[in-house]
């Protein structure tokens, strides 16, 4: 007998797929694939599906091939299978590149001006001319054609367009309707039962979690895949009551965040590996000066410039160890948008509760993927802050208190002389080289690490999913949550996924691994960084499945690789 069994829930993979729908839309860079994909996602959202959208694009502005895969499911998801139900081709390259994902069942809807004899063609130019619409509205014709092909009622298209097209909705609807009326319903999709949920990218969820955690100021320099958070918060800053600054470099970014925090404003920064390299000098300053700071580090394929628009999980050890000297830090790696909302708020709160750097470690897959977020599932982690100065003079910014967390005061408070200092310093914040003071203040800072570890035991730092009783477990972190969960469900495996990576939740992890005889690490890096981290605590991965070509694991491929190990 193999150690894996098809799941209780489905008899086989085919049945599982009956509750799934997969749509790929592709075209040239500059064709607006991402926004067209977002509209397709909303159509599926409005007929009752959970959504995951994966957006794939090269690092250029015009001309390369862009595509988005939108998957709807009856369950919460975070990955896309290879096989397509619908292929929406804005050009013939899309058909050629994705032919391997098509079956006889796949419905192809194409721009007939660009693609000859592939599925149902829409004469986009003629459709636009018929209603006097500009070329920029061409994608609405494709989306209208898709809706008809899939049997999505016209009123759903109207609703979605009215809610999600900011300008020219009436004309876009005319374009969509013209195409809708030309096509046949060849691949009707069943309707789900759930109401539409908010769709958020991982970065948007991280930003909203930060705001829920009291964000006053977001500072960032553009770097894929963190930039969309900068764009989102800059766009929404008035509504959310936050300051957003884009300064000259990542060096200035982190220094500004520290300046804001010194005045009592909760601040955060966002970057990717290369930008974070520039920040490490001031990360250490935050550690020494005990200034609260929240950082989004969204990983892409490295080293160096690497693949700017593709994913990876190769910066875990860098973030764990960045910056000279020894000081505590929090690192959380949420697995999807819902978790990103929750853990980003936790990160903000812990940064302020312990006056430490708190990292949200993401990657391209999470940051730029779009997820359904069930409003009823959003939980608030509770607040976290440092005690405030009581007014006793002189103010001791670095008072050596039992837990190590000195009460905070801010400049402008009456009679407080507030000193932040990058040098070794005494309790008032004045520079010292006195040996015993240096050692005592080091102990004080490290005590906060112990307090943080105690605090984090109260949070769900290790996630167990799949079949909790299985003796074979996939061991993963971050955005591979979605793909690992599906493979585990199909093969009857347990998934053990630490969300908190520093302080390492060794007790929670050991408990989660109780009864596991075979531990398979699944990571998007070449050296199994989580497995290496766990090994320090005596937790050994028996097998390693690694991918490091910039692409996220596809369930199809991971299924094959895991099967090889569990048979």
């Amino acid at each position: 007998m193999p150690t894996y069994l098809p799941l209780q829930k489905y008899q086989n993979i085919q049945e599982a797929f009956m509750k799934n729908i997969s749509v790929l839309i592709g075209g040239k860079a500059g064709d607006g694939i991402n926004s067209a994909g977002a509209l397709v996602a909303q159509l599926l959202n409005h007929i009752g599906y959970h959504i995951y959208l994966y957006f794939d694009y090269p690092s250029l502005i015009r001309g390369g091939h862009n595509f988005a895969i939108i998957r709807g499911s009856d369950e919460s998801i975070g990955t896309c299978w290879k096989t397509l139900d619908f292929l929406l081709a804005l050009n013939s390259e899309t058909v050629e590149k994705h032919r391997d994902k098509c079956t006889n069942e796949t419905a192809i809807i194409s721009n007939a001006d660009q693609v000859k004899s592939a599925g149902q063609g829409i004469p986009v130019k003629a459709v636009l001319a018929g209603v006097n619409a500009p070329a920029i509205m061409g994608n609405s014709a494709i989306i209208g054609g898709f809706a008809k092909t899939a049997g999505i009622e016209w009123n759903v298209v109207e609703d979605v367009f009215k809610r999600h097209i900011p300008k020219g909705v009436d004309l876009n609807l005319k374009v969509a309707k013209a195409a809708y009326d030309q096509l046949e319903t060849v691949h009707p999709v069943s309707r789900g039962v759930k109401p539409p949920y908010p769709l958020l990218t991982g970065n948007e969820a991280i930003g909203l979690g930060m705001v829920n955690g009291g964000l006053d100021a977001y500072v960032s320099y553009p770097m894929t895949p963190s930039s969309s958070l900068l764009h989102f918060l800059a766009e929404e800053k008035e509504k959310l009551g936050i300051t957003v600054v884009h300064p000259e470099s990542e060096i200035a970014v982190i220094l500004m965040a520290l300046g804001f925090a010194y005045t009592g404003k909760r601040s955060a920064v966002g970057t990717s590996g290369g930008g974070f390299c520039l920040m490490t000098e001031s990360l250490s300053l935050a550690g020494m000066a005990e200034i609260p700071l929240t950082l989004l580090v969204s990983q892409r394929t490295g080293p160096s410039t690497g693949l700017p628009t593709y994913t990876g999980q190769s910066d875990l050890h860098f973030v764990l160890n960045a910056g000279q000297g020894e000081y505590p830090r929090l690192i959380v790696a949420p697995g999807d948008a819902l978790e990103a909302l929750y853990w980003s708020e936790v990160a903000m709160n812990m940064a302020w509760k312990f006056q430490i750097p708190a990292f949200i470690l993401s990657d391209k897959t999470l940051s730029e993927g779009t997820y359904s977020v069930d409003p009823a599932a959003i939980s608030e982690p509770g607040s976290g802050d440092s005690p405030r100065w009581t007014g006793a003079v002189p103010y001791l910014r670095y008072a050596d208190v039992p837990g190590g967390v000195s009460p905070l005061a801010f400049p402008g408070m009456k009679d407080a002389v507030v000193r932040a200092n990058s040098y070794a310093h005494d309790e008032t914040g004045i520079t010292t080289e006195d040996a015993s003071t240096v050692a005592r203040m080091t102990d004080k800072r490290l005590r906060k690490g112990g307090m943080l570890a105690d605090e984090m035991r109260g949070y769900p730092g290790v996630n167990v999913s799949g079949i909790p009783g299985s003796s074979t477990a996939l061991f993963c972190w971050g955005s591979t949550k979605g793909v690992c969960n599906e493979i585990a469900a199909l093969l009857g495996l347990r998934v053990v996924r630490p969300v908190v990576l520093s302080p390492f939740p060794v007790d929670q992890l050991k408990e989660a691994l109780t009864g596991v005889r075979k531990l398979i690490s699944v990571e998007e890096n070449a050296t199994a960084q989580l497995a290496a981290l766990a090994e320090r605590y005596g937790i050994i991965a028996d097998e390693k499945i690694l991918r490091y070509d910039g692409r996220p694991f596809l369930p199809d491929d991971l299924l094959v690789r895991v099967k090889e190990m569990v048979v």
Partner: protein
Amino acid sequence: MTGRQIITDTQNTWCPGCGNFSIQHTLKNILTEIEQSGKSLDDVVLVTGIGCHAKIADYLNINTFYSIHGRTLPVATAIKLGNPHLTVICCSGDGDSYAEGLDHLIFAAKRNIDITLIIHNNRVYGLTTGQYTPTSPLGFKGKSTPSGTAEYPFNPVELMLASGATYVARGYTKNMELLKNLIKEGMAHKGFAFIDVLQICATFFPVADYYTPRVYELTDHDRSSFEAACIKAREWDYSRDSRIALGTFFQRSLPCFDDTMAVKGMEQKDRRQAVRDLLLTRS
């Protein structure tokens, strides 16, 4: 706090004859005047880099942010953005702001953030014991350039004019009355105030005998004229022998970064509601 002791009890470790004493004394007098005028020193913040200049953070009994080398201005900028009621002074060295943190200097000027920057320009690295800086004269023999530098200094006054600073001045630690006036003017100026202070390094570059006969105060100078400022700024290029103008080269009024960037804050419960409202628009 009123009637505060403005100098801390911390042991002062500047060399005898160091120009930093003059800058500290000047700031002490200005802070005393601020307090005497009825304003609170609780609203004053000093940001420093790393170097001999930066020890002033330990010596002045006010709010201080003792940052790292070259990294004063972004901190000071965000302090002003975070709390616009604060008066923010930045003390920085020539190694600090002209070498390691040059980009921050140019951007602070470009943004016209309402802070005052005092450069303790002794034209040598003191704390690291005598290497050339961006304003050392051509041929300067330091520990890293024993046969003399092979590069010209740049002219920080000209650089700041080109970068859009709205108050540009030069002082000298041996003319303390002028120095005090310049720093007071800089603090009163709404916008980015840049004051390059020729500061004597008693140990590694003791050039008072060179400066004193050459310096003169700008008179009959139209500080509102950018062209006049450029001509005066170019008179001495920090390398070749020339008269050295002291005083205010340029001043003009432009919108400040802190005013333009101001966003109305929000109660946390209102922010949470804003997040919920935003989520609703995404379904």
